[in-house]
């Protein structure tokens, strides 16, 4: 994470420095898009959420408090916006295994691509709150403490959510023959 640098960039952004904004954009566009994609399982929805996230960042430039780290702020917006998106599209409930299944026979599922697809499908079977901790941990590489900061929950809760989320993923992947 690049927090001191991010804060300086945010300060410059709030003064209308386009170059600073571009630097932040280059740094966070892909993680934000990927987090939204893993939360929503749709590149189109992820694109729209990414736009909303950055717009919200600009909208609240003057409200950003530098005592908080920028990444935790933008990732929190990303996850909240993703969950809002799921609510708006009535997709808040975790999908059942059948609905989330991306297809393919058992013999094909051994490939990496299939595993990745199966993993994404399994992710969609767990609740958005569980999905969020998995995304933060495994996609965005956040520590327990950072996840706690992003989600504004105690570290113990982060650990228990991670544990439960992983248990559910294991069960789902086992049912699909993708995990022993």
């Amino acid at each position, binding site marked *: 994470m690049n927090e001191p640098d991010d804060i300086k960039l945010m300060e410059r952004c709030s003064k209308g420095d386009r170059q600073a904004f571009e630097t932040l954009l280059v740094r966070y566009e892909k993680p934000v898009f990927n987090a939204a994609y893993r939360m929503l399982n749709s590149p189109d929805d992820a694109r729209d959420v990414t736009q909303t996230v950055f717009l919200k960042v600009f909208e609240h430039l003057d409200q950003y408090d530098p005592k908080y780290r920028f990444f935790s702020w933008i990732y929190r917006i990303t996850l909240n916006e993703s969950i809002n998106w799921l609510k708006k599209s009535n997709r808040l409930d975790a999908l059942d295994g059948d609905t989330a299944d991306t297809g393919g026979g058992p013999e094909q599922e051994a490939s990496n691509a299939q595993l990745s697809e199966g993993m994404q499908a399994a992710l969609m079977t767990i609740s958005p709150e569980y999905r969020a901790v998995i995304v933060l941990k495994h996609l965005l590489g956040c520590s327990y403490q950072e996840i706690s900061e992003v989600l504004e929950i105690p570290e113990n809760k982060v650990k228990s959510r991670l544990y439960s989320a992983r248990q559910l993923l294991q069960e789902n*992947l086992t049912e699909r023959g993708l995990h022993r």
Partner: protein
Amino acid sequence: MTIDPRYFELIQAAIDGEIDAAGKAELETFLAESDEGRAVYEDLATLCQSLDGMPEIDSPPHLRHILLNMAPATSAPRPAPGVWQRIFSGPALGYIGMFAACVALTLALLDSGQISRDAFDDVTGLVGTIANSEFVAPEHGTISVDKSEVAGTVTLRSTGPILIVDFDLSAKQPIRILAEYSDKSIWFNGFAQLESTGTSIAADSGAVTLEMDGKRRYAVYLNNPGQRPATINLRFMVGGELIHEAQLNYGESD
């Protein structure tokens, strides 16, 4: 499972790289003695490896361009301008235009049922952040509609090559409005609405079809690259029946 929950926590912490020296030693002792513990460890490690190995997806190639056009210009954020000023502000148009330019080709090929209106939902709320509230696009004409089914105004504005058709209408029942533009070089460039629902839009070559019900305020953005004189014919229909026709002109009398 007969494993003490404490060891599950240590196993997870070890795999996540969040274990301290004392915990590590305790876990090692436990794993050395427990086949079940080792199996749990390996299972979780395998799962985490698979999760870590999920590939990063490339964001759409035009996304950064769109986002860059949302950037603050050269000044610090201003106090929020009026809602309608937000829509008709110059930089806002820049954003909406750029955003819409990227979707326009798609929109031109699709009917409204295939367009995710949600993509536009935040436009009106968002443009305020980059709005220059001192600029309001000049008007080129207004038509009034006063029918039992629908009443209100439609105003044509412009800024640079962008024509803005500003609808402020109240309909008692679902109505369809067909806006046809005379010059085929004009293309649909975007759509913004104050309400997040209630109006749908479909763009085709040379025309835009809007469907609405209730009191609505929205704007259709058209790109008129040569800034040539143009006529926009508006046809208001209810249940497939034409109830009103009107025309807005750009350029000739300006």
